[in-house]
């Protein structure tokens, strides 16, 4: 069965780009979220196998959302996809429970590689 995914990013364009990449590679995108608050709600609702998480977002940022999702489900598989590649942020995200960190702009292969490492 296809692995399910939740895409989190504040821009519609990036959500569309990630959706296209995931669907082309056999993943099923079950929901999209535009900020960290929505991400937690959609995670609880859909329990996806995988989550992509932006960092800079309105309302609730990505690092906070990672912590909240991991608090709800310690097994959650989250990869960060962000333009902010600063060392301290990568460390914060990994400490919060993210499994990988992809810096934008990315090659589609880099996303798929990160997801495959998590769910085979």
């Amino acid at each position, binding site marked *: 069965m296809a692995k399910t995914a939740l895409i989190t990013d504040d821009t*519609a*364009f*990036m959500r569309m780009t990630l959706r296209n990449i995931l669907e082309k590679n056999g993943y099923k995108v079950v929901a999209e979220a535009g900020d960290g608050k929505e991400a937690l709600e959609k995670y609880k609702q859909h329990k996806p196998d995988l989550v992509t998480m932006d960092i800079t977002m309105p309302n609730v940022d990505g690092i906070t959302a990672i912590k909240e999702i991991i608090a709800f489900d310690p097994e959650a598989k989250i990869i960060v996809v962000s333009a902010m590649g600063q060392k*301290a942020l990568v460390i914060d995200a990994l400490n919060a429970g993210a499994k990988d960190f992809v810096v934008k702009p990315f090659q589609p292969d880099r996303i798929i590689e990160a997801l495959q490492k998590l769910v085979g």
Partner: protein
Amino acid sequence: MFENNLDHGKIDIIKELANIGMGNSTTALSAMLGEQKVAMDVPEVSLVALQDVPELLGGADIPVIGTYFESRGELRLVLFFVMSQPSADKVVNFLLPKETKVDTELYNSVLMEAGNIMIGAYLNALSQLTNSTLLSTPPKMAADMAGAVLGTIAAEAMIVDDQLILLKTNIKVSELEVEGSILIVPCSGSLEKMFSLLGVR
């Protein structure tokens, strides 16, 4: 031309940081545009009277589209990525898959994400150089005449005696016939903070 605490040595440092940061931004833009060559001018650092900013953006009545960001970490900056309307159209068309139905939300979101990635790349470089963490606000649009973009700058930046310090770099993508500018305006106290992070007296 600058107040006496900003001597030539310090201006050189600002220029070099801008050069590295904006170099990172153009590399990011090039990667977004399928590795097309993105040329970049040497950054200019100037003290600009507020009323002269629209002229730098091409004239008060010229339609420009800008995405802007504030960095709210250890260094407070206002950062803009500005393009003419035709250039913005070409970038949006290139980045969207063919036959995508484009509405205003999607159009704006392409430009916001392109700006987000470029400004993110700038802040990543500056973070490394100053060994500090620089967070940015989510992108905002300033799609209007240059005169209105000026209003946005005026509201956000530190302005002393109607003047502000402006870092400007023009970029050009020949293949796609796109031209734009990256503008950075330091907020109050940011330059002093930056020099102290760099250990410059």
